[in-house]
């Protein structure tokens, strides 16, 4: 029974990871792509690891440590990417998704 | 359809996708990503060929005691080849990226069509 539940959770995690890839492919803009890529893939990773922990209960502590590392590093790295994308966009390319916000955001010295 | 069969098919599929990316894309960075995909596909194929049915990793510890090591371990030689291949793939990708940086510095464009004037 725990095998079935663990496998279902791993499958749901795989679906989220696939949707992360699909979102990165189909989104029009760099910031939207980063958003799709990080949120869905972090959740997909976490669900896959939780499913593995249910499948093999003696690995729960190790899986918890791995989930902690994933939750610490994935959002920070995507934040660094998004900050770089936003800063470069503000200097070089007029964005077509953010309309009137560009004027408001540019006055704080970007 | 066994495990290693599925892994082998995935690796060959990844190699084909990487090759498609290298041949049809115009952006230099996408070509480099295609190369990396092709490399990853080949590494997966190498490791999948070495799988032994119901085998486990060739590391002697509690899960694989010394007495049944020869019966249940997976082939270690393709895994060693894969370690070497991954490091070499990383090195070649680094050189490709350095070339991409210099090409961008020369023509201010990341499309390889900008360098078409060197064709015959």
């Amino acid at each position, binding site marked *: 029974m725990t095998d079935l539940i663990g496998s279902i959770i791993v499958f749901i995690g795989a679906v989220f990871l696939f949707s992360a890839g699909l979102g990165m492919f189909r989104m029009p803009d760099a910031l939207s792509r980063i958003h799709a890529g990080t949120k869905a893939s972090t959740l997909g990773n976490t669900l896959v690891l939780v499913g593995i922990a249910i499948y093999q209960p003696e690995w729960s502590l190790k899986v918890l440590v791995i989930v902690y*590392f994933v939750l*610490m*590093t994935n959002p*920070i790295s995507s*934040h*660094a990417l998004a*900050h770089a994308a936003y*800063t470069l966009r503000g*200097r*070089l390319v007029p964005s077509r998704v953010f309309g009137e916000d560009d004027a408001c955001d540019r006055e704080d010295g970007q | 359809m*066994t*495990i*290693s*069969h599925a892994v*082998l*098919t995935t690796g*060959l599929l990844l*190699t*084909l996708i990487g*090759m*498609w990316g290298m*041949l*049809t894309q115009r952006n230099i960075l996408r070509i480099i990503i295609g190369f990396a995909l092709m490399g990853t596909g080949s590494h997966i194929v190498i490791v999948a060929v*070495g*799988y*032994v*049915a119901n085998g486990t*990793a*060739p*590391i*002697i*510890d509690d899960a694989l005691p*010394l007495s049944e*090591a*020869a*019966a249940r*371990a997976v*082939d*270690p*030689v393709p*895994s*060693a080849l894969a*370690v*070497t291949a*991954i*490091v*070499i793939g*990383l*090195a*070649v990708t*680094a*050189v490709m*990226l*350095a*070339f991409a*940086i*210099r090409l961008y*510095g020369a023509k201010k464009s990341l499309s390889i069509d900008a360098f078409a004037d060197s064709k015959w």
Partner: protein
Amino acid sequence: MMRLAAAACLLLALGAIFATISLDFRERTALPPLAAAYVEMVPRELGAPNVITGILLNYRAFDTIGEVAVLFMVAAGIGLLLGPGRKPKDAGRPGDAARDESEPEPSTEIVRNGADVMVPLIALFAVYIVLHGHLGPGGGFQGGAVVASCVLLMLLARPDYRIRLAQLSVAESLAGVFIVLAGMAGLVFAGGFLDSRVLPLGEFGTLFSAGAIPILSVLLGTKVGCELSVIIERFRAWGR
């Protein structure tokens, strides 16, 4: 159009070949004789639980030196391509007047605080992977890559963090020299070049065991970590 058609033909042909490979594939049920010999010889003769590290750092150690040579050439080649200094004709670009090129972009608070937490953990993990290469999955190359990722995180979090390229190059070259010296010691004192039995085998499964394999792992990890850090620094500092 011709390009796409040619690519499609090539991919279809390769797909047909791969399909025949995949359809005729039979999973192995027993190890081939060479692999069975390795799996049985490495714990017995080298005292290393990890068979793959025993193969890479003893029986096939010459290939590992070849790989180390390839990495060294790549680091040198990237140093040549992305060499020091800016090209003089780049100095007059009009669009960069508002941005001071020599002033690095400050990093945000999230990245800085996250790096304060993660860098010690990553460094500890890198040392663990390198030292336990003969006991579990790991070894010199893997640990060296984690060292380089730690350096990359430091570079991202603190823009005024400077890597001393000269010292790293000296460290990397010294590690390479010591690897060859260890190899020659193996030639003189033990079975052959880079034989790890120059040092006593010790107790099976402890940290200080398996002869010279931990020392070779440390040297490899240092070399690979220094090389990848130098490569990352060259990427960062080009055009600045």
